[in-house]
């Protein structure tokens, strides 16, 4: 089951799966998504109908979570949830879901929920998005990772969208196409001629149920060039860059009659990193050269992730202060006598003034 929460999450979920369930606090936002199997309006207290979003306020989203809590927990079981971390609805409702998952003692592998989280591009997106993301990474996401009760977490970044100046539609299409390449691994194992190894849907499901960050990528594989270099050159620009992997999965597609042993170099690379990957090699007649799809599971402490966002948040705050000073404040030069100011403050407070007066009256001051 694919679930989209909030505006950004719903659009991605709808594009990935026409039968996706989408959730929002605004009817208008729900109607904006052209494809969706089911639309759920999460209830918030609104006097004139629910036509407004969360106004970048995660607290509104979190309140609304309570109205869909039971249902969302049920449909998210074993599914994939897409949401942005910057806005109000996605952040707030996903926060509720993550907190509930983290509070459970344990969750069977088959019932774990994967998360596709879209993080803002800090240099160009609103300060509220950055601040909401900081809260999200520091709080619920951190708890959920510690609990080990989630499946893979995909940290998508809006960087490419802003740097390449893409429309939202084009960026979402790019993101979904990219995800489809990764998700096609078990299907390709089923439909194409298997040359080595094997990844069946159960293996793939197990991999998706691991509670780590997932960085997947794919590229034409050149057996003559070291795999490490190729991987570095081809990290997925739609995702945050990976750390040293803990687990990995890869699928090599070779052309018809191609060398099925090219995967040993890849295996050696992971072996050198003490990672035993799940892999398979298939023959794909549509390919003219080997093609590899690889996913790395890594663990990065949210604190490290946060550092980038905190830095940007601080810059935002500094700029705001500077701008407000430039725009509104004409600072006169003040000669402050600290003793006089302290006496004035004491006088304003009232009772202490008396004691100084008493001392003066007694001739001791």
């Amino acid at each position, binding site marked *: 089951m694919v679930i989209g929460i909030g505006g950004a999450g719903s659009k991605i979920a709808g594009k990935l799966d026409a039968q996706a369930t989408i959730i929002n606090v605004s009817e208008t936002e729900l109607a904006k998504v052209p494809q969706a199997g089911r639309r759920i309006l999460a209830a918030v207290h609104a006097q004139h109908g629910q036509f407004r979003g969360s106004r970048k306020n995660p607290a509104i989203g979190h309140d609304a979570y309570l109205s869909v809590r039971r249902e969302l927990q049920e449909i998210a079981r074993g599914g994939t949830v897409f949401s942005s971390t910057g806005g109000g609805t996605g952040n707030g409702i996903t926060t509720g879901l993550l907190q509930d998952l983290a509070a459970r003692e344990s969750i069977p592998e088959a019932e774990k929920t994967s998360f596709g989280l879209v993080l803002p591009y800090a240099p160009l997106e609103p300060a509220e998005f950055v601040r909401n993301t900081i809260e999200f990474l520091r709080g619920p996401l951190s708890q959920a990772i510690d609990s080990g009760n989630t499946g893979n977490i995909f940290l998508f970044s809006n960087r490419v969208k802003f740097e390449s100046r893409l429309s939202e539609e084009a960026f979402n299409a790019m993101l979904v196409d990219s995800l489809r390449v990764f998700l096609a691994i078990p299907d390709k194992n089923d439909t194409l001629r298997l040359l080595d190894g094997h990844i069946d849907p159960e293996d793939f499901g197990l991999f998706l149920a691991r509670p780590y960050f997932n960085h997947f990528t794919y590229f034409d594989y050149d057996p003559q060039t070291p795999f490490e270099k190729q991987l570095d050159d081809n990290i997925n620009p739609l995702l945050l860059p990976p750390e040293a992997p803990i687990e990995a999965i890869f699928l090599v597609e070779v052309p018809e009659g191609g060398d099925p042993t090219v995967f040993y170099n890849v295996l050696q690379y992971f072996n050198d990193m003490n990672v035993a990957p799940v892999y398979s090699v298939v023959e794909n007649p549509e390919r003219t050269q080997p093609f590899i799809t690889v996913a790395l599971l890594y663990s990065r402490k949210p604190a490290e992730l946060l550092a980038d966002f905190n830095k940007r948040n601080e810059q935002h705050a500094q700029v705001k202060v500077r701008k407000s000073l430039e725009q509104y404040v004409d600072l006169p030069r003040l000669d402050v006598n600290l003793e006089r100011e302290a006496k004035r403050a004491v006088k304003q*407070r009232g009772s202490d003034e008396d004691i100084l007066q008493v*001392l003066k009256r007694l001739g001791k*001051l």
Partner: protein
Amino acid sequence: MKELFEEQTANLSEAHFLILYWATQGEGRQAKYNITNCFDDLKHCGITRTKQTAVAAVEALCALRFVTLRGEGNRRNLYITRYGARALEALVLRQKFTPRPSAFLEGQ
């Protein structure tokens, strides 16, 4: 010397502050404020439960010449000195402690 005075004043505790405060209030109202009253008030404020602590605080203030103890009848009454006045002024201006009412003086 000024530095020494500032150092001494900065290290006074809340009990010392209150004793200076109540001694001044007492003197201002021409009420005799003695060590026993001082102990009762500190106990009432929850600052100490033993008379030794109250006596130690008063003796420290005496040693610093911030208060003097005068035996009047069978009571030893507290009077703030000029140094004590300056120390209390400094503490009040610094707003380090909040004054509390003396149960003895309120009942006068």
